[in-house]
C-alpha cells in the first residue's frame, strides 16, 4: 500500500498548478458561475485551448492522439489541479465520456474525426441520453433511429441535458430495434449538433447552470456517426458510464472551496472575535475537512483501480460517486449553518458574506442529479457491489400489466 506520489508526479502537479495560477486573471471567480456569462465563456474556451497546447487537457491520452501518453495517476493529478483552480472545461463531457467511448468502440476514421478537435480543446459535447421516459432507466429510450439507406432518421426528445456552451456534437442513444429485453435494441450515435431538424430549448436550473430539451425532428444522420455495433449501444454506454463517475476534479474543487472558506472564517469577525475561534464553527470546519479527505481518498482509489483493472466494467464498490452526491450537500449545508441568516443572501447584496458564494454553493448542491441521483448510485451498489436481490422480471411484468389494465 502506498498513498504517496513519485517525485516526478509531484513535479507535474506543481507545474500544472503554476500554469493555472498564471493563466487565471486576478479577479477570477473560482467555483462556478463565471462561465455562465458570455464573457466568461469566451475566456474559458481560450484557456481550454491554451491548456490543450501544454498537453494538460489530455495528459492521459496516447501520444498518437495528441495526448501526453501518461498514466491514470498523472491524469488524476491534472484533474485534481484543474478542479482545485476552480475551472470547469467547456468540453468536459467530450473529454471524459465521448473520447473514451470513441477510443473503445470507434473505428479508425471516427477516431481521426472526433479525437483531434477534443485534444485541441475546441469541440464541445453534450451527453444527450436522458428522455422524459428514460431517466435512469436508460433502456427505455423512445427516440427512434430508422435506417434509410446510408442514413438513420432520428425522431424524439431528450431532456435535462446539462450544458451551458454551444455544442459541436451530441453523444446520444436511440432505439434501432424493438426487442425484448429493451436494452438490446439501442444504438449509440455521435451527431453533429447543428444538423437540420435539431432544436434546443434551454431552462436555467436552480444551481446556476442550464438544463436543455433537445428535439429531433426527422434528423438525417449518416451511418458513419453510429458508434460501435448496431443495437449494442446500451452496453457501450454502460461501459463508458464509469468514466463519468470517477474523477479527482471534484474533491480538488471542494478542497479549494474549504480553504477559501477557512480563510474567510479567519478574517470575518462576529461579536469582535474571528469566526474561527467559535467552538461550534471549529467543529463544523473540522468535519468538513474530514469529509473532503474521505472524498479525496475515494476518488483516488477509483482512479487507481481504473488504471489497474483487468477488464472494462464497473468497480463493485465505487463510493466516489456517492461522495459527490452526499458530501457536497453536507458541505454546503455546514457552510450555510456557519453563516446563519446571512447564508441566504445572494451575490450582489451589500450584506452578503464571502461574496455570496455559500448561497450559490448551497443552491448548486440541490441540483446534483446529473449521472443519476444518490438513490440510483445506492441501487447500483446494492445490486452489483453487495449482490442484493432485485425485483424479479416476472413481478415487474405483472405490475406493468396491472398498470396497463388500469389505464
Amino acid at each position, binding site marked *: *500500500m*502506498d*498513498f*504517496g*506520489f513519485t517525485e516526478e508526479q509531484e513535479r507535474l502537479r506543481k507545474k500544472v498548478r503554476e500554469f493555472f495560477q498564471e493563466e*487565471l486573471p*486576478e*479577479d*477570477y*471567480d*473560482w467555483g462556478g*458561475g*463565471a462561465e*455562465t*456569462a*458570455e464573457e*466568461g465563456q469566451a*475566456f474559458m474556451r481560450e484557456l481550454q485551448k491554451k491548456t490543450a497546447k501544454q498537453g494538460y487537457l489530455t495528459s492521459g491520452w496516447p501520444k498518437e492522439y495528441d495526448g501526453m501518453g501518461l498514466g491514470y*495517476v498523472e491524469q488524476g493529478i491534472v484533474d485534481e489541479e484543474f478542479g482545485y483552480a*476552480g475551472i470547469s472545461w467547456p468540453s468536459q463531457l467530450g473529454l471524459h465520456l465521448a473520447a473514451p467511448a470513441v477510443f473503445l468502440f470507434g473505428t479508425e476514421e471516427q477516431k481521426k474525426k472526433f479525437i483531434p478537435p477534443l485534444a485541441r480543446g475546441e469541440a464541445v459535447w453534450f451527453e444527450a441520453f436522458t428522455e422524459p421516459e428514460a431517466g435512469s432507466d436508460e433502456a427505455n429510450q423512445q427516440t427512434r433511429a430508422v435506417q434509410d439507406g446510408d442514413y438513420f432518421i432520428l425522431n424524439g426528445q431528450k431532456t435535462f441535458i446539462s450544458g*451551458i*456552451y*454551444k455544442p459541436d456534437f451530441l453523444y446520444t442513444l436511440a432505439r434501432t430495434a424493438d426487442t425484448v429485453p429493451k436494452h438490446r435494441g439501442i444504438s449509440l450515435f455521435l451527431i453533429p449538433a447543428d444538423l437540420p431538424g435539431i*432544436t434546443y430549448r*434551454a431552462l436555467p436550473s436552480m444551481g446556476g447552470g*442550464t438544463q436543455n430539451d433537445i428535439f429531433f425532428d426527422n434528423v438525417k444522420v449518416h451511418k458513419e456517426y453510429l458508434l460501435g455495433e448496431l443495437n449494442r449501444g446500451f452496453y457501450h454506454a454502460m461501459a463508458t458510464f464509469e468514466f463519468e463517475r470517477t474523477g479527482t476534479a471534484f474533491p480538488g474543487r471542494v478542497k479549494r472551496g*474549504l*480553504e*477559501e472558506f*477557512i*480563510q474567510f472564517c479567519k478574517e470575518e469577525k462576529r461579536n469582535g472575535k474571528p469566526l474561527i475561534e467559535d467552538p461550534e464553527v*471549529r*467543529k463544523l470546519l*473540522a*468535519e468538513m*475537512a*474530514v469529509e473532503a*479527505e*474521505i472524498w479525496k*481518498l*475515494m476518488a*483516488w*482509489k477509483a482512479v*487507481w*483501480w481504473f488504471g489497474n483493472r483487468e477488464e472494462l466494467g464497473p468497480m463493485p*464498490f465505487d*463510493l466516489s460517486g456517492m461522495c459527490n452526491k452526499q458530501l457536497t450537500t453536507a458541505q454546503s449545508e455546514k457552510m450555510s449553518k456557519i453563516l446563519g441568516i446571512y447564508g441566504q443572501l*445572494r*451575490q*450582489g447584496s451589500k450584506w452578503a458574506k464571502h461574496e455570496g458564494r455559500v448561497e450559490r454553493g448551497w443552491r448548486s448542491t440541490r441540483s446534483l442529479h446529473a449521472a443519476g441521483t444518490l*438513490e440510483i448510485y445506492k*441501487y447500483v451498489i*446494492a445490486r452489483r*457491489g*453487495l*449482490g*442484493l*436481490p*432485485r*425485483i424479479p422480471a416476472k413481478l415487474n411484468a405483472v405490475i406493468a400489466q396491472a398498470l396497463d389494465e388500469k389505464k
Partner: protein
Amino acid sequence: MDYLLSEEQEKLKETACQFLEKECPETVIRETREEDQGYSPQLWSKIADLKWLGLVFPEKYEGTDRSLLDLAVLYEEMGRVIFPSPHLSTVVLCGLTILSAGSEEQKAELLPRIAKGDLILALALAEPESSWDGNAWDAQGITVQAAADGDHYVINGTKLFVHDAHVADYVLCAARTKDSGQPEHGITLFLVDTKSPGVECTLLNTTAYDKPGEVVFNQVEVPKENIVGEVNKGWGPLARVLQIGAVMLCAQMVGSSQKALELAVDHAKTRIQFDMPIGINQYIQGHCIDVLWYTETSRWLTYQAAWKLSEELPCDMEVAMAKAWTSEAHEKACWHAHQVLAGVGYTSQKGVMTLYSMKGKTLQHYLGDTSFHLNKVAHEVEKWTAPEKPRGKPLGYWDIPAEEQIPAWEPWQELRKGKKTW
C-alpha cells in the same frame, strides 16, 4: 500510489483470519467476558507463538520487525472477531513506548518478555477530572503527582479507564513531576509494579464487559530506574504511541464494521419474509449500503493514517481524522446493521451483532472520541491558507437580470430562424 495490500500483508491477513475464526468463535468471546481475567491466557500464548506480540519489535528483541501498517492489518482482523486480549495495552501502548523511550537495559529486559507472552502491561493515563473534561488523552489532563524522594519517586492519585490493569504485571503510569506552565513539559513515565504496596485496582463495569480498571496510587514508591525515558520529557514519545494506538483502534473498528456488513448483507439475502428475501426492499438495501459506506470510508482513512505512521511522515491531521470519523462511523455502521438484523441482532444471549455494537462504545471513546479528535483536526485546518490568487469578484454574471441569465441560448433560437450562423 498503490491501494493494495502487499503479498506479505495479504498473507498475514489470511493467516490471522483463519486462526481467529477457528480459535475465537462467539462462544469464546461470551465465556471470556464472564471471567474475571477478561482474556484467554491460552490464546495469548498461541498468538505469542504466531509472533503477533513482537510483530513490530526489532529482531534483536525477539520481534519480527514488521511495519505499523502490517499491525493495522492484524488489528482489523482482531476487530472482526472482537478478539479479547491485552495486545493494545501491552504491545502498542506500553511496548512501543518502551521501544522508543526506554533505556537499552529496559528494552533488552522487557521487550523479549512481551514478545514471548510472559509479560502484560497497561497504560495508566486518563484521570477522573480530565476524562470528564475530554482532555483525558492530552498532556494537560495529567495531574497525578510523582514527587522525588531520594532514589525513588512517590506517586499519588487516581487513574481511570486503565485497560488490562487487573492482569498486568506493570502499569506504565504517566505522572506529573513538574508544573512548568507548559502541559507537555513535566510529565514522566513510571513503570509501576502492580504488586507494589499502595497500588489498588478496581474493575469498572462497562457496556462491552471489557474490564478497564480504576487504579489508585497511594504513596506508591517507584525506584528511579523504573522511569521510562527522561524525567519531565515523557510526553513526546507517549504522544506518538497514543497516535499509533488510536489508529489501531480504528483498524479494529474497521474490522468490526466489516463484520457488521457481512452479517447484515448475509441476513438480507437469506431471510425470507413476504415470500421474498428482505434484501429486495430498498429500505433494507439502503441500510446495507450505509454500513458499507461507513466501513469503506473508515477503512481508507485508517489505512492512510497507518501508512503515514509506518513511513514516519507527518500525520497529526490524518490520525485525528481517522479516529474522529471512525469512532462515529463504527457506531452508525452497527446501528444500520441492527436495523437489518432486527430481532436476530439484539437478543443478547444469541445475537452476535450485540457484541460488536457494545464493543464499539469502548473503542469509540478510548484514546479520544470524535470531538476530541475533531478539535485536533480544527487545530490543523486552522493553519490552512487559501492561495492569494485567484480570489476575486465574479465576472459580472450576477449583474445580469434573472430573465437574461442564459444569453448563450438566444442565438440558437435565432439560428433556427436563419438569422445567425455558426
